[in-house]
């Protein structure tokens, strides 16, 4: 069998970086799914890209600027309207190690 591209430890590590809580079943499931996705994408490796610079943008534009001018801002009520938790005019989040 072909060498695995991703293993369960990597999945756990990435989940931790993204602050996701995965059950052991989910860890298994995502490892399989990611393995399949990555093997599919790996097909691209067959191409020789030795002399081709990496593409980060598909459009050949640069220097898209705005001038230093003020436009609208939300009120704090609007800004907070989607917040799952709030206090006064603040977003409320679980305590972060200070």
């Amino acid at each position: 069998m072909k060498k695995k591209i991703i293993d369960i430890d990597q999945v756990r590590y990435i989940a931790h970086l993204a602050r996701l809580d995965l059950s052991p079943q989910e860890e298994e499931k995502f490892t399989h799914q990611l393995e399949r996705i990555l093997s599919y994408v790996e097909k691209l490796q067959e191409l020789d890209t030795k002399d081709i610079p990496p593409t980060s943008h598909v459009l050949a534009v640069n220097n898209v600027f705005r001038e230093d001018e003020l436009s609208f801002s939300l009120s704090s009520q609007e800004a907070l309207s989607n917040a799952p938790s709030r206090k006064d005019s603040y977003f409320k989040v679980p305590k972060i190690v200070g």
Partner: protein
Amino acid sequence: MKEYKIYIGLEVHVELSTQSKLFCGCKTKFGAAPNTQTCPVCLGLPGVLPVINRKAVEYTIITALALNSRINKNCRFARKNYYYPDLPKNYQISQYEEPLASGGWVEIKANGKTKKIGIERIHLEEDAGKLIHGEIKEDKDFSFVDYNRAGIPLMEIVSRPEINSPEEAYEYLVNLRQIVRYLGVSDCNMEEGSLRCDANISLGEENRMGTKTELKNMNSFKEIREGLRAEIKRQYELLSRGEKVIQETRVWDPKKKKTFSMRGKEEAHDYRYFPEPDLPPLFIDKSWVERLKAIIPELPQERFNRFIHQYGLPEYDAGVLTESKDIADYFEECVKFFPKPKMVSNWVMGDFMRLVKKEDMTKIKISPASTADLLSEVEKGTLSTTMAKEVMEEMFKTGKGASQIIEERGLKQISDEESLDKVADEVVKENPKAVKDWQKGKSQAIKFLVGQLMRKTKGKANPQLANKLIEKKLKNLSG
């Protein structure tokens, strides 16, 4: 006892004083009510697109040029991914492999010699929000977030680890801040967080650095110097005991005057940078750079040298006057109206700066022309230095001109010999005892008599003239 070489590198973050944020049109004003300066872009709501503020890019280029850095023609933004509630998008738009500028230096004085501290890179990124940790009892398990700061343009200047003592670090920061303020791209106010600084420190040998620690949470240049000293001492003691320094992030505790390990925050130093797909790359051509070069003002070091040569000022004066651009500008304006540089310098460095310290320079109501008027009155002898001080304070408060105040308050010094002569006669007549004392050889007595004359004229008599007249009277009486 083993000697170690100290290696310090500083990461300085400077909030640029643009009106609007880096990628949206929200205000950047400090001190606004929480979450009143946000919009879908800086809150990271789905479907929005950031657009780069041209001025923020130009401010960074200007700073880079002033610090002798190389502007990278092709540069781009990158996403730095980490999860922390001060980041609404869970990534920060920053720069990684292709920063705006690389290289350069800041000159400092070290042991009486000029030393160049190398700069590694200068890049532009967005600031994060502000976290407030549960100070209220029932909320102690929570933190509170204000996103007003999120998205304010932040310029990061990273030095090479070429700083070899806490004193050099202090000097580097003072000089860097002075340059940035001269350029007018940031007010560099540490209390308001528009300048922040982290440090990397290690103890090593001549050509080999040791294991470094990163030091955070220093809130003034003095604290940075203190924090560095404490961390160096800690590392030195570890190494002397044969123990190892662990690579970690530490925080400075200004109350305990010690550094403490920031446990647990180490693990996630995996930012998985990748080019920001929402922002097209930058192309900074020569003509743009040349245009910006042309608007860079004279920098502190050049100005310092010019003040010495052009105005013949001592180094001390040139240093004090060029410390801030506003003061240096003010001095030069005054000299235009009153071309006696040393006299202007004494005045500006003394009473003027004492008053400026209390007030913001922008609120100063005394025009340079008005200061020049005041000085010419002093020179003519119509105003004593003490009276001039009073007049200036009034000018400060009211914005009235010098001559107007002198007129209104009847402050003119009496230099008219005829009228003073009469007063001198009275004084001598009314104080026979002092006259006798003087005749017996008590030279101090003359001071008393001059003092009496000053009292009679409410301090308005020209002191030199008063002295001369009293002396004349005494000699006449005895002769």
